[in-house]
């Protein structure tokens, strides 16, 4: 059960919406083509930041058990890092 007030939750939601819109603006730059590495990393970073806010504020784990907080933030971080590594390898092999 979250200890955040409705106002704090609304602020978190506004930040999340702004992050989605920022991602959408970035994606318009790469319409119909592959995203350059910097944008790819930007999309993944936004995903981790969004996931972190959901875990801390919506799930109410900002003050909850540390092991759950760390575990739930580590999950999106792990897959985002894996996707970033894949993009990095692809970009290096493309240049090579």
């Amino acid at each position: 059960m979250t200890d955040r007030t409705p106002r704090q939750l609304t602020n978190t939601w506004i930040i999340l919406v702004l992050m989605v819109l920022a991602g959408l603006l970035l994606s318009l730059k790469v319409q119909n083509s592959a995203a350059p590495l910097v944008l790819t990393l930007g999309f993944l970073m936004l995903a981790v930041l969004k996931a972190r806010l959901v875990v801390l504020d919506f799930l109410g784990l900002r003050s909850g058990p540390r092991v759950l907080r760390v575990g739930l933030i580590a999950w999106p971080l792990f897959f985002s890092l894996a996707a970033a590594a894949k993009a990095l390898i692809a970009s290096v092999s493309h240049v090579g």
Partner: protein
Amino acid sequence: MENATMAGAAGEEETDTFILWVLIWSELAAFGILIGAFLVASMIAPEDFAVARLHLKPGIAALNTLVLLTSGWQAAIAAGQRASVSRRRRALVLAALLGFAFVAIKIYEYSTEIRFAGEAAFHSFFELYFILTGFHLVHVGFVGIVLLIVAWRPRPANVVLVTTLWHVIDLVWIVMFPILYLV
């Protein structure tokens, strides 16, 4: 006697929480395996995956991200410590309706993509794409119905269980979105 009843209730709550987190981590493991498979397959056939991805609609997926995050916001309000019963109920119904909107938008998106799935070069991409997003979609639809059932009689313990699961489904989508559509 009263102490024994209270201890029993606390023990039951602890068991509920334990089962909830076992369920959540098993869900995250299942989605993790599928996301991992998608990443590996995209490394094996990078050109095919890059071309197949051009047939997806990231704008519609971004809209769905907004819908799901708004639903998560309402679910968090429903789980607020000081929320009244009527507020909990209203927020749970809104969260569920937004979940159903997500399902409707996703089905529309599928209708624009399904015709490309038959092409041999895109077979592997679309197979994993439909399994991953379809598995997620079933979760959204099913837990959306559970949200409505809990809204009927919003006992705090049930609200916590169902909204926690809802946020995790949200979390999975947040990670899936850039990996499937953008990266």
